[in-house]
């Protein structure tokens, strides 16, 4: 019997291009579970990617999909959403696309509170191009472009999005799949800019060269052991948290969306005819 969720993938699209043990597959799977559990109409869902490992994932989904340009995922989403605010738009990208080349688009889309859901696989490097340093690579990491260790401090991307104006913000790792699926569901149902960072394993690059762990399961164990919930971190100092990953729902607030601004101009909001 075929897997019941195979219907959410395009026909004939397998095998996918992800490496064995890649976090992208888990995140795609988690997104599919969210679609399934919410009972979303696949005809009214647009998934937007770009260039990069996670950004490739929309090509596999059986929805309307834009496999776009590196880091430009959110401008595409802005155009789609303004042309037809009735569509549900989910953006998939990686840490390179969202924090490096597309960084300005990220903060502007958050500032506007564009009603989309952004799921970011933070695998700590530019994985597709060979494991170069990214703005999310932890301090001290040895990558293919930081042979003596990364001396640039990484972004806390969730704090960045919060300061910019995002209205639903959460972070999980791929060792927290149930929580992640729940957050994706919340993000999709939330009206406004929803941002979900997923710290995900990359056994091919970050895991292999930085953590010295080639086995995907060992990478997942590392993520589990090196993360703590927002409640656990609450009473700890920054030093006590150290390099560990704080996970949980950080922000949930209601603010007018970009689309709401047009209601003032037009008296209503719907698809442009």
């Amino acid at each position: 019997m075929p897997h019941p969720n195979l219907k959410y993938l395009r026909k004939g699209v397998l095998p996918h291009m992800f490496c064995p043990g890649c976090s992208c597959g888990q995140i795609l799977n988690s997104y599919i579970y969210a679609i399934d559990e919410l009972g979303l109409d696949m005809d009214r869902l647009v998934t937007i990617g770009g260039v990069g490992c996670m950004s490739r994932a929309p090509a596999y989904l059986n929805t309307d999909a834009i496999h776009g340009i590196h880091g430009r995922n959110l401008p595409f989403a802005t155009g789609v959403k303004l042309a037809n605010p009735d569509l549900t738009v989910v953006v998939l990208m990686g840490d390179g696309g969202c924090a490096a080349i597309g960084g300005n688009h990220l903060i502007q889309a958050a500032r506007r509170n564009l009603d989309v859901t952004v799921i970011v696989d933070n695998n700590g490097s530019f994985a597709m191009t060979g494991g170069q340093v990214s703005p999310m690579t932890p301090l001290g990491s040895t990558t293919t472009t930081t042979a003596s260790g990364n001396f640039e401090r990484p972004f806390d991307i969730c704090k960045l999005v919060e300061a910019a104006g995002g209205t639903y913000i959460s972070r999980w790792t791929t060792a927290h799949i149930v929580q992640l699926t729940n957050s994706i569901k919340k993000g999709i149902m939330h009206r406004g800019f929803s941002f979900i960072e997923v710290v995900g394993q990359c056994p091919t690059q970050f895991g292999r060269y930085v953590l010295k762990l080639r086995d995907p399961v060992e990478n997942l164990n590392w993520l589990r052991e090196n993360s703590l919930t927002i409640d656990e971190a609450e009473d700890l100092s920054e030093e006590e948290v150290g390099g560990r990953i704080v996970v949980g729902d950080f922000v949930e607030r209601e603010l007018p969306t970009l689309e709401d601004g047009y209601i003032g101009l037009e008296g209503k909001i719907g698809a442009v005819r």
Partner: protein
Amino acid sequence: MSKVEGIDESSSFQFMLGNHAVAEGAVAAGCRFFAGYPITPASEISERMSEKLPDVEGRFIQMEDELGSIYAVIGASLAGVKSMTATASAGYNYMQEGIGYAVATETPIVVVDVMRLRGAEQATHADIMQTRWGASGDHEMIVLAPSSVQELFDYTIEAFNLAERYRNPVVVLSEMTLSLMRERIRIPDRGEIETVDRKIPAVPPEEFLPFEAGEDGVPPMAVLGSGYRVLYTFNPHDERGMITGDLDIYDELYRRITCKIRRALDDIVKYQTFFMDDADIAVVAYGSEARSALEAVRRARDKGIKAALLKLVTVWPFHDALMKTVAEQVERIVVPEMNLGRYVEAVERASCGLAEVTSLPLNKGRVHSSDEILGGIKRGA
């Protein structure tokens, strides 16, 4: 909107800024989404679009940069809305990858490039080749270069029609001179304006191949959210839209994407000829240079020189056969341009040595005077 004094309010003649004529033309063509980033001398297009679009239930957004603008425009077009952005030379640089994306995914968009000198707000034709070859990867651009405020209005409408008919990005190539010029123009009645909409699928989703084209090479296009579940990708893709590593499919894809334009030159290439019947010398000009050129040709005729003008509105694709016909007839072709002589290379190549081709470059931020072009006509005449 200002009206020309002495003209009845009900008439459709208006005294209008070039940039405003682009915006008015776009709205008349059915443009309902605009994204842009401020830049001189194109900003009045954004300003007018921001005023006009809410009145027609369209949407305007000022993006964070030119990259944001072009991808928002592509997204909106994929969602079924005729869309445009406008910029000037420096900003046009930033849009090249987006233009390549629109070529690859066959997304109809209109991009206005108001050419200005590098680092200075002066008139130029220096970017004429960039509009043909700016984007990486194989492509065939459609570029219209109007020469008056009236033509900015008319050919912005035409740009939308060509974009929709051929599913290709179309550039309206304006200039510093034209963009900030005010002229009296005639706005046709609604019913007089012909607008074209992209073809839509004739079959249900399960039978639809999104990149399968008929005779004309242009596939029908499904709107996002209409149940067809299309994948749009920059990567080599087959008729289903699926990414493929098969380079034979890649080759076939770009042959179709470029040939759909090359095979339709007679529809796409808009031009006018003046005094061509008995001419033995022809001026080939585009944009504002065509105006000085026409005056120069008239003055040459007064002096008994059999001069003619081939005024090209569509500057790309280049109509080789048309140019060859002119070259067969005349002894000399003069090409005045506001640059160091760029377009003349295409004219010379297509002339096949049948006529002597003289470049008349001027790179000083202004249009040739008719005296200067007349000088070029007389040289050796």
